């Protein structure tokens, strides 16, 4: 993707530099090295970029006065001459040796402070040339592009460029979303179609995401559940997906710039359904006929016996709680969140209701409901009850009620299973501890004499107070035995 350079880039950056550099001092010299070589070159060539009272020079490998470019030697001379204030735009790939003196003596304009100002100015420009809504929309888009937990990298320059192009070209933010790694959104004049950012992200994930890369273009398009797309749109979308399959994401999305008929809103997805048609319980059994662990049940004592739900009578003391999980799928699968309420009941083999729950539709791939010890507190310790789970839709008799297979409820000791530890595997704990941020925590852990837990796979576990920093070290059985002796 080649960079689009506009007058506004230069003007806003000049203003940002003025703000950051502040009051002038005679003989001052500042430099910036956080801009990419193409931006540095464009700034130097653009005479509009002229922070007031500052003389601007680009530092590269060859001098060219017309392009405001000098070499590192000349930059050093300028620093020593202490003349008029100079701002050096350093092309870090071409500046060569000799800049070290300037780096250590002159003032550096760092990326954070420069773009702090530049983004604010660019945002203001969007507000004044378009509207406050457009600015908010653009800022939302940037957040959306970064994803949850800033998982996708959006550099400050990209943010700035996005805002500048919206303002300069008086474009709606949705049209330029491809610059941020999102699917472009077509917005009507009234802005009635909403910001479309969630759908934009959905398009990227379902059409160009790593998780779906193994699907054919037709299959990927199908997962979007488009609402009445034209044949031309489907064909063009499939063609596009084929042609960009081997391209980096940003390059792939930039191909959409002039294909407005493939943008969000030109392509609409089916809205969420409000009417439930059916429910289907997920079996507690795996393909091999064994009871799945997620169910909370265990296999019956003999083949053909119903599965068993074991409750520890002393669970409140031992902490050995049991859970019974029921899962089901609703049809249609795009049923809106909260569209229906389910009633999940455990009934005995005498059709007596033991316990019931009402849960709202979550809109997830699978709905689930869990029962734990507290739900069975009314049972005696010697209870042995045959039961089943019944799931129905509240207030809708047309949807067939679903029943699970029968199972037995009894009290006893739930089968013990040491869970595998959670934490990064390291060769030694010292290898993990160097990742901690605070020295005090490391000292405290190192001087601790507490015995560490061992998981079912023979790993010693170390949990640290720092979030997300738990470690595991394999303990050979020989060492374990030695330690125990």
């Amino acid at each position, binding site marked *: 993707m080649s960079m689009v350079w506009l007058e506004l880039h230069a003007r806003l950056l000049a203003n940002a530099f003025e703000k950051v550099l502040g009051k002038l001092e005679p003989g001052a010299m500042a430099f910036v*090295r*956080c*801009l*990419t070589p193409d931006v540095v070159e464009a700034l130097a060539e653009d005479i509009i970029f002229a922070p007031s009272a500052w003389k601007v020079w680009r530092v590269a490998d060859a001098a060219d006065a017309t392009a405001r470019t000098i070499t590192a030697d000349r930059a050093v001379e300028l620093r020593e001459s202490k003349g008029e204030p100079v701002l050096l735009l350093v092309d870090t790939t071409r500046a060569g*040796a000799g*800049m*070290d003196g300037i*780096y*250590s003596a002159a003032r550096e304009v*760092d*990326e*954070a402070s420069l773009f702090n100002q530049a983004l604010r100015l660019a945002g203001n420009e969007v507000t004044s040339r378009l509207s406050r809504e457009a600015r908010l929309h653009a800022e939302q888009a940037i957040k959306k592009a970064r994803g*949850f937990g*800033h*998982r*996708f*990298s*959006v*550099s*400050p*320059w*990209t943010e700035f460029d996005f805002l500048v192009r919206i303002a300069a070209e008086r474009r709606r933010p949705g049209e330029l979303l491809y610059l941020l790694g999102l699917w472009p959104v077509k917005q009507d004049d009234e802005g009635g179609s909403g910001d479309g950012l*969630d759908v934009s*992200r*959905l398009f990227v*994930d*379902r059409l*160009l*995401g*790593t*998780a779906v*890369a*193994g699907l*054919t*273009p*037709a*299959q990927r398009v199908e997962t979007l559940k488009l609402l009445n797309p034209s*044949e031309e749109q*489907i*064909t063009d979308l*499939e*063609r596009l997906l*084929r042609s960009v*399959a*081997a*391209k*980096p*994401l*940003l*390059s792939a999305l930039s191909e959409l710039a002039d294909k407005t008929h493939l943008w969000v809103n030109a392509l609409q997805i089916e809205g969420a359904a409000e009417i439930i048609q059916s429910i289907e319980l997920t079996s507690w059994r795996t393909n091999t006929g064994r009871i799945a662990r997620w169910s909370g049940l265990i296999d019956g004592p003999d083949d053909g016996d119903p599965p068993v739900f074991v409750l520890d009578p002393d669970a409140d003391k031992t902490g050995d709680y049991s859970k019974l999980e029921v899962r089901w799928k609703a049809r249609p699968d795009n049923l809106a969140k909260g569209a229906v309420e389910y009633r999940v009941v455990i009934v005995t083999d005498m059709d007596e209701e033991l316990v019931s729950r009402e849960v709202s539709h979550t*809109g*997830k*791939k699978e709905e689930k409901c869990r029962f734990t010890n507290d739900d069975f507190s009314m049972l005696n310790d010697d209870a042995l009850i045959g039961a089943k789970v019944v799931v129905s839709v509240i207030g809708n008799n047309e949807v067939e009620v679903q029943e699970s297979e029968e199972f037995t409820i009894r009290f006893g000791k739930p089968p013990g299973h040491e869970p595998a530890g959670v934490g990064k595997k390291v*060769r030694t704990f010292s290898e993990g501890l*160097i*990742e901690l941020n605070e020295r005090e925590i490391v000292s405290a852990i190192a001087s601790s004499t507490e015995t560490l837990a061992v998981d079912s796979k023979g790993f010693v576990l170390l949990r640290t107070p720092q979030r997300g920093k738990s470690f595991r070290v*394999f303990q*050979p059985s020989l060492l374990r035995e030695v330690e125990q002796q």
Partner: protein
Amino acid sequence: MSPAGKANTARSIVDDVFGRARTREIWTGNYGKALPVSVQEFDLSAVLPAVFYMFRFGHRRGKGKFLETFGGDAKTTKERRRGATIERVASKLAGAEVFEGFVGPTEQAILGDLLLCFCLENTKRALGRHEQVQRVAPAHYMASWVDLPDAVAHLRYVPEMIVAMLADQKEQHVQQNREGDRSWFAVGRGFEDNVLLRAFHHGVVRHGEYLAGRTADRFEEQAPVGLDQLLMIRLAQQLGAAPEKLRGGEGERISNQRPVAEKAARHFSEDIRRFVRAYARVIPRHAFVELLESCMAVGLTTIVTSVIELLFEWAVTAEIRKQCDQQPTYLFVDCSNGVDRRLRALAEQSMDDFMRRIEQFPVVLMALRLLDHGARYDSKLKKLHQTRPYATDWLNVLGELLHQRREEAQAILYDLERKAEELAEGLQEDYADAAEMLKNNRAQPNPVWRLAEALTSLQGRGNTQQNLITLVDSVLLVARPNGLAMKRSVTRKLSSGGAKKRDVRSLVFTDSVLDYLAHIHVLRTGNKSGYRSLSFKDFLQALRTRYGFCVEHAPPGMTISNELLRLNRVVLERRLRDLGLLTGVNDAEAMKQLRPRFEHAEEYVHGVA
């Protein structure tokens, strides 16, 4: 089910349309003329012993005596394989004349641990003395006598490709070098004529001619060797002889097919030669083997990524890029090895995008196989079928067919169009998606791509894309202490709601990789001895241009804050200093120089020098 009761599998339908022979050729994940390895998982650390064997004998390794010696008396091969455990090997060795004092269970356990530490590896890298032994480590040249893994094909033709690249011959197959041939990696000659064998054959002399029998290599008992090497020699001696040459369908000859990524192949050959010559005698053996594996990981990764980039470009332009312009994939490296979350996220994003892109690679290979078959049976085109050592010209011919720039293209594409129609008809009932793909000439007018896409989809993801991912993992030595990448399992929120667990990978520089990269780049170019002064900046530049490792630059298609790029650079600088690989007395960038930790060996002049 068909009336005859035969299952209507995708393969059987394709068989019916294309015929058995042609289906066998296209129903695979490989295209050896572009990338002469099987696109599957392999163990890089098990490759070197097979390479030693091929250099020594000039042909592919066949059956040896490992299972016969250590597999016990079980009847079936499978049982013997399972029976060959560290415990059994140790007990057998302990009974040999050359071992004394290993009679008791404790001594044998110690011997077993030594074997596991230096010489042998269990399946799935399991610890313990009761697991099946699966691989042999390249502690010494004599490791080539141990036929592990028992079928050399399990190494996916990687040793063959390495031998072909290093031997650098011109013929169809790798041949024994003749007297006076100028080569750093002579095949079937003396140990001294091969840089790699010279580094590993310590204490072993050959009795007889160059290609003398399988028992001609003998260990001179007076030669001083390290404990690890001695153990390997004793293990090999127990077998009595080197394995036989490979017999059967696949043939004993080593194909001289090289990857189309000529530049990356040349760099690989250069790097391995220079590294072995300079450091084989100065770095302790165990550390040297680790660094050599890192060297192979870096080289093979560059070859694989370069081939992928070249073929993606070929699919668009119909041409393989000239050698001087070839490039690997540019990938961001997390120099903090996952300690800094922000850098890790960037490296994962970069690698994730690469993994997304390579999902298309099996389709390109399928297109190549389809065109290759069509072109090879064309009377005019088959004359152009010269693919060894490099298939660049042949691939350009196939590209011209794909883009219909040759008159022969019409007939070939017409035939493929018919096949597509016929196949769509056959698939309609059981594989409607694939049939639809084949018929949809609006979205994809070219029948080659329609067929390639449909056939790849019919093969299944597990046989195509997933195999490619395991190949990439193998060359990267993922999650190994001397590897190039880390992998972790993450649960990511989906935009459609819910979450999905999947693996994410990131490129990292382990200490071993850093050690190797620093040591190889401080060597003077060509065959000059000694070190050159290399600034940190030039080092970073070399990593990027030669291997595609981006440290202070964002890879194409990614935007990265400059502050993070600088942080990555600073982290790398600090790690190099900590490892003793960088000196710099002040802030001057040019004064930050890389330096080796090991003194360069002054080598005698080789015939080529």
